[in-house]
């Protein structure tokens, strides 16, 4: 006679090393099999959208750093593009190139963390993670060179960037591109055919394309399932239309593909940077923008392909010095929409890997 069993509820997080912050899941388990989960948010809610309503347009830029704190530069960019769209500002060429280089460096840094921590969640404790972090450190050094900061850069400004890049920056980027492509190859050689990674990640947590579209999931997670959607190509902003790059896609949409897609995207980012550093024009780095910005009444939405997906900003202006309403399209929150369907029927250890492969930042989920 079989044992009589019953499902039980396990509280997972908010303080758990694999939740990448303070994320909580109420999991219903049957033994080790996940029957259902209920995500619980809000442990990092700081009310950034409300704070925006009492700050000047420039004064809000430091707060965007705190949204997705791994990709501060991308957040800066999404916000500045929206205000520029609202006011019709033309950004100087040099600033556009600097922005593209910086945004792609930021993507490299993010994918280092994404891949490293995903392998951590797969059980490869800290060796791949530390290798990835070692390389990310070099990118942070470059960001420190331009902005003086290592995490919350506050570098972009409405109409350009806050200060010109130092003369040693571009040679340093060039050197990094060379080192980094070696690193990506080396990293991938060790892991691509790794038996443990294959066994843990192949076929696990498959995300079908129709669910991706229905949920509005974007970024590497969507492209790993074969949805060829990249705003750098589909809706070019800044000067992305001048560079040659491919949009890698995979077809299975499992955890292994979500690992592979990030490695492939790092290579494409390196291609863009290599092209961009050759063409950086001279000139001013910020447009002629008044110190106290008062955009005309109206509303604007601009979006960028941030490392985690479509990051957008929706601003309603009433012609005063502060936004009337500011909404950030939270990539991380939306990418979690399908988590429930992805983890049902998998074991607890797979749940951690599937969650890690989505790559979220709680600062952006809770805002």
């Amino acid at each position, binding site marked *: 006679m079989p044992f009589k069993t019953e499902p039980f509820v396990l509280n997972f997080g908010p303080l758990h090393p694999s939740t990448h912050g303070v994320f909580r899941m109420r999991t219903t388990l049957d033994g080790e099999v996940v029957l259902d989960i209920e995500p619980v*948010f*809000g442990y990092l*809610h700081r*009310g950034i*959208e*409300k704070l925006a309503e009492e700050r000047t347009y420039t004064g809000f830029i430091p707060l965007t750093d705190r949204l997705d704190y791994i990709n501060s530069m991308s957040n800066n960019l999404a916000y500045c593009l929206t205000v520029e769209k609202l006011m019709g500002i033309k950004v100087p060429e040099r600033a556009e190139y600097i922005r593209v280089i910086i945004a792609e460096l930021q993507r490299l840094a993010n994918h280092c963390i994404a891949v490293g921590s995903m392998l951590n969640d797969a059980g490869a404790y800290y060796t791949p993670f530390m290798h990835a972090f070692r390389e990310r450190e070099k990118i942070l050094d470059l960001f420190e060179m331009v902005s003086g900061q290592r995490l919350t850069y506050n570098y972009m400004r409405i109409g350009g960037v806050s200060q010109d890049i130092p003369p040693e920056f571009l040679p340093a980027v060039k050197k990094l591109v060379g080192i980094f492509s070696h690193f990506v190859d080396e990293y991938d050689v060790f892991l691509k055919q790794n038996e443990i990674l294959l066994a843990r990640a192949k076929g696990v947590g498959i995300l079908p394309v129709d*669910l991706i*579209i*229905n*949920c*509005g*999931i974007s970024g590497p997670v969507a492209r790993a399932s074969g*949805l060829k*959607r990249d*705003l750098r190509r*589909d*809706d*070019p902003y800044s000067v992305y239309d001048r560079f040659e790059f491919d949009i890698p896609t995979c077809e299975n949409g499992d955890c292994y593909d979500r690992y592979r897609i990030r490695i492939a995207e790092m290579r494409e980012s390196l291609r863009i940077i290599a092209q961009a550093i050759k063409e950086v024009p001279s000139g001013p780095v910020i447009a002629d923008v008044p110190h106290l910005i008062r955009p005309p009444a109206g509303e604007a*939405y601009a979006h960028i392909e941030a490392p985690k997906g*479509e990051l*957008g900003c*929706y601003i*309603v202006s009433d012609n005063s010095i502060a936004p*009337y*309403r500011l*909404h950030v*399209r939270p990539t991380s*929150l*939306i990418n*979690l*929409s*399908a988590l429930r369907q992805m983890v049902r029927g998998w074991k607890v250890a797979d749940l951690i890997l599937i969650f890690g492969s989505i790559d979220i930042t709680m600062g952006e989920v*809770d*805002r």
Partner: protein
Amino acid sequence: MIVALAAKDVIAKLTEKFPGALEEAGRDAILVKADSLLEVMTYLKNTPEFDFDFFNFVTAVDYYHYFEVVYHISSVRHNHSIFVKTRCYDRENPSVPSVVSLWQGADFQEREIFDLFGIRFEGHPNLKRIFLWEGFQGYPLRKDFNR
């Protein structure tokens, strides 16, 4: 290139199909009456000509006299997008129909609007506060919220 569909073309189609469902014609967005929101959205999603299958985001704005709920939807196949808006004038008991039955991606975001604006989404499967704790008084993103 994601093209923002000209609202007036869509509005012309919608007025023909659902007379009386739209409020005054906006310039860059479609302004739908709250009680016909669900049928207009179903039409926009399921008509092959529009095929708005990708749910970008939904948010709300407090304009004192009314709340405006803003939907941004786009189509992967046609690569176009549009803003759809609806208003609720009742400040005591604001409510609009939920679109979770059409797009699963609206689930968390409608909960967020309920949490921060107090707008009820009729038909939402699990409408409760998402960021703030149960028992929190007031709705912080309303303009008259007093700290």
